């Protein structure tokens, strides 16, 4: 196992030992390579997820139309060119699963946590590069298992991405609850292992491996966001693992955690009594709600960094930003019940969850106002990354505000499981997070691949996607307010909803437009990896530490000593400086007061001379730090 110390020693002597192809590109322990692996797997899964959405959008817009070509690709799932109702459910389910877990959790947080935590903290690599590698490969395995479920006879899981039992627990309840469902559960279990390995690693790296002078209050907001995200994941994913295991038991070993009093068509009365389907929902949403912040917070962190860099201004209210991230993290654990207002849960609990849910709006509002003030009197450079960051803020506003409706138990009675919900979460965590991801990709592409992406294509990509996303999701609010339920294959028995057919067609066309825009992105991305314009070491004139590394990737990140940090990350446009930026590692007398941070009182946390010896030690001392005492 290669350790951070070993990297350091080698790097000092500029010794580039030869690595086999497999060690370098496949089973790599280098965080930069792992981040690229996460990104590319995430993009592949994203393309799959998006194509699925276009398929079911076609069905919603032209339910009677025959698309002969679909039969060619999908066979019996689209007999005569009309999507099968079961397959429609499967598409909806797998689209959700892929987007939530594989693209926006692993693809976003996996990519950028891996890339930026060591680089922005000033570390040679992750606390445990080996666990890091395992984390990727568990994720990869999980993706393969999930895609495999498309090739089983009864089709992939199709009980919705939340896979509520009894529907998901009973093999005979629908075709998708057969072997496909088992594969879904296995895939999720593997995914959780990956997320936990990653999370442990991120936390210990942030706590223990920061360079000299990098006190917690000098961390870029990206790192803060990744840090809280990892904590959320570490505390909530195990609960989902438990939920999934119980479901596996119910499905395969005859237990009754979630089952009671069921008479199933084609089977008869089941033996199971005493369980509760609502238990599953509690367990699921105990992860499920933090999960939306696991998705969103890295995107918010990226946005903070990108906006400050490109507005050439210190981020406004650094401390407030950190505190609101912390507030969101804590609150996100105690609001899960707002997904369950009308499940028959005690209405008193509903009132409690309503109160807690609406409290989250306060830190979110603070974040938005701080973004706006950061832009105010800035000197805004329109890089594609900046545009996507602005897009995120816009979606965060419009999607976040509808959360105030859905968090209100009384309003949720009529909006629950309607298109209003679809519109809400697609804007606030779907579009917003994916825009954060794009922003990150455009911004750190030079760091990842040493080349620049094409700006012009980036602008087209942004504007087309931005407009299309609003065209897709904005009208859905109105459908929801008219009582149109989600996950409907067709409105044949409720013809009154056919007045929305025209709107559905508009949405589908916009969705296809968004699909086209992603072709521009994919072209730009893969072309630029090989043929893009070569980047300088600091193409955006940014302050943070990652831009002090050489353009070519080397083991251990810095050829010499790890630079010392002298000030906060957002010292842009200082009056006393000629240039409008002031990198963290450039020595200077003054501390800077960009975020009102006082002179650091703590000694440098981690230095070159005392490297972390093993992964185990690092984890142990991380634990010590979190607990605040030494167990000895």
């Amino acid at each position, binding site marked *: 196992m290669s350790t951070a110390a070993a990297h350091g020693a080698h790097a000092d002597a500029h010794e580039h030992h030869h690595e086999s192809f497999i060690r370098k590109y496949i089973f790599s322990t280098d965080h930069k390579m792992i981040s690229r692996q996460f990104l590319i797997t995430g993009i592949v899964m994203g393309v799959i997820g998006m194509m699925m959405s276009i398929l079911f959008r076609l069905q919603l817009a032209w339910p009677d139309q025959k*698309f002969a070509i679909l039969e060619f690709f999908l066979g019996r799932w689209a007999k005569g060119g009309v999507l099968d109702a079961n397959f429609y459910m499967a598409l909806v389910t797998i689209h959700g699963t892929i987007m939530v877990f594989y693209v926006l959790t692993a693809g976003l947080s996996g990519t950028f946590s891996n890339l930026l935590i060591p680089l922005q903290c000033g570390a040679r690599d992750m606390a445990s590069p080996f666990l890091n590698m395992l984390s990727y490969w568990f994720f990869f395995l999980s993706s393969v298992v999930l895609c495999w479920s498309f090739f089983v006879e009864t089709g992939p899981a199709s009980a919705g991405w939340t896979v509520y039992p*009894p529907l998901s627990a009973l093999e005979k*309840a629908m075709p998708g609850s057969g072997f496909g469902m088992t594969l879904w559960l296995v895939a999720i279990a593997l995914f959780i292992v990956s997320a936990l390995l990653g999370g442990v690693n991120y936390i210990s790296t942030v706590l223990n491996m920061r360079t000299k002078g990098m006190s917690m209050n000098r961390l870029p907001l990206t790192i803060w966001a990744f840090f809280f995200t990892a904590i959320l994941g570490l505390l909530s994913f195990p609960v989902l693992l438990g939920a999934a295991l119980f479901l596996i038991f119910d499905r395969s070993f005859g237990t009754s955690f979630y089952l009671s*009093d069921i008479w199933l068509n084609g089977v008869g009365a089941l033996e199971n009594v005493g369980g*509760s389907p*609502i238990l599953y929902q509690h367990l699921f949403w105990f992860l499920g709600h933090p999960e939306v912040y696991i998705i969103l917070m890295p995107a918010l962190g990226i946005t903070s960094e990108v906006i400050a860099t490109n507005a050439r201004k210190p981020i406004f209210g650094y401390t407030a930003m950190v505190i609101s991230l912390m507030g969101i993290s804590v609150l996100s654990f105690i609001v899960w019940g707002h997904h369950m207002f009308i499940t028959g849960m005690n209405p008193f609990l509903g009132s409690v969850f309503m109160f807690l849910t609406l409290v989250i709006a306060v830190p979110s509002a603070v974040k938005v106002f701080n973004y706006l003030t950061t832009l105010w009197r800035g000197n*805004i450079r329109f890089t594609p990354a900046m545009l996507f960051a602005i897009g995120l803020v816009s979606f965060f506003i419009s999607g976040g505000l509808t959360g105030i409706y859905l968090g209100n138990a*009384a309003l949720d009675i009529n909006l629950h499981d309607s298109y209003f919900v679809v519109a809400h979460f697609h804007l606030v965590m779907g579009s917003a997070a994916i825009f954060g991801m794009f922003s990150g990709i455009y911004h750190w592409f030079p760091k990842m691949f040493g080349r620049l992406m094409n700006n012009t294509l980036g602008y087209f990509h942004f504007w087309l996607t931005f407009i299309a996303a609003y065209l897709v999701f904005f009208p859905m609010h109105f459908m929801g307010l008219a009582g149109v339920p989600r996950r409907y294959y067709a409105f044949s028995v409720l013809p009154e909803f056919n007045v929305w057919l025209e709107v559905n067609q508009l949405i589908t*066309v916009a969705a296809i437009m968004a699909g086209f825009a992603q*072709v521009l992105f994919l072209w730009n991305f893969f072309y630029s990896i090989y043929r893009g314009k070569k980047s300088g070491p600091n193409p955006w004139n940014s302050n943070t530490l990652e831009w002090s590394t050489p353009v070519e990737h080397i083991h251990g990140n810095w050829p010499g000593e790890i630079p010392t940090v002298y000030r906060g990350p957002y010292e842009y446009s200082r009056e006393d400086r000629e240039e409008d930026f002031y990198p963290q590692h450039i020595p200077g007398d003054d501390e800077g007061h960009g975020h009102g941070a006082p002179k650091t009182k703590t000694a440098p946390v981690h230095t070159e001379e005392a490297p972390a010896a093993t992964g185990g030690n690092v984890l142990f001392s991380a634990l010590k730090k979190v607990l605040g005492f030494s167990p000895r």
Partner: protein
Amino acid sequence: MKKMMFGWSGAKLLLWASLLLTSTLAPLSVFAQADPASDVIPAPKEFSLSTADLVYYAYWLLALLVLLVIVYIFNIGAASEKLTGRTVINWTKVNAWLSIIFLVAGSAGVAYELVYHGKLLLPEAASAHGDSIDNMFNWTFGFTFAVFVITEVLLFWFLFKYRHKEGRKAAYYFHNNQLEVIWTVIPAIVLTFLVLRGYSTWHKITQTPEPKAKQIEVFGYQFGWKARYAGDDNKFGESNFNFIDPATNELGLAIKPTVVALRDTLMADTGRLGNDLRNLSSMLKTKADQLAKMSLAADGKAYTDLEREMEDIRNGNKASELRKMIKRKGVQIQRINATLDSKDVFNEAANDDKITTEIHLVKGQPYTFRYRARDVIHSAYMPYFRAQMNVVPGMMTSFTFTPTKTTKQMQDELKNPEFNFYLFCAKICGSAHYNMKIKIVVESEAEYNAWIEKQKRVVDPVQPATPVAPAEAKDTTANPKTATNRNIKPSLAMGF
């Protein structure tokens, strides 16, 4: 730059990619007809190009045009930049203006939505509590829409106003406690207001007892709904999922003869399954003979199905499946037997219950819908009444509301004589999730009384106890325990 980044080859590739995508995704009756395998695909009724089709093509054309424009602008721009060395397009300016255009067009879009799609929204609530929900909605909308407009306008305005200019330096402005306190406190106050109001609305709807409420049971199953009225005694009969028989007792009511008949059927089934289990080897032989007479080419799926059945017998799957079924039915029989003597369960209250395929309500009368699910979670959604509640197997949920408009009134109000209230499923529940609704009729008391008179009682008062097999039923009621034991034992022995 030595080589132009996206040369003509790049442009061509993009063009081809888009053409390919366009043609593959096109729906087209045209394509379907031209398909060589058209005998497999049912041919469309007739070929015609409707306006919708044309609009559809127009969309595609537009998308294609946009792409072409992109490719061209890009090429020309790149080429002339290379020739003259000057920037042709000032992207800062373009993006700044685009954000203003987006702001204006977006506002127009929002206005259009509010006016045009706003008309398609639900009409005024048809229930007493619905008004309070609508009221709550309006308050929330007022606040959030104001915030939405202000923040979005500021966002795009700042983008325009503070766009990059050469030689200008951004303000070094990082912190202002006062400001931050203000915009923490203001949202906090607004949200406190919304929470308090929301709490009182929620409390009023869900936690206020309605002593005069009449109960109606709504039963959800894959895929449909049934309603049950308590009948003349105003008391629902007991029900149990073990009593369910889709032919004679779909709600699983405690009606002794029916339940006894069900138990006997189950016992007969277990006996038959036990026989099957014993005779698996001869069954395999029969199937093998049958298979020998068939051919894959002629019988296709029937052939492969048979093959699979034989495989299941050989590898023991069939046997374990049979054992499971025997065990499951055995448990059900035991559970039925355990309740058969209970006077609390079989209290005759179910006899005058009425099971209906429509829900009829009297205007102004409060109702409590008590929900039961047979198999998976459903959700009973009635948007016009602003009512929704999940229907969960294993637990009873309920929702209380008072309808305030008759169906007739709604038809007049919406100028739609076809209008009807429906209760439909909003929780994903299987393949035909989208096919699950029950009609609700709100009417006057007289109309309701006329309708409910016509509904059949579960047990006919004139000829009581006439389920499927009366003779057998009589026999077994006499001595249920022994009957069970006699019939069940051999099969259970096989089962375990």
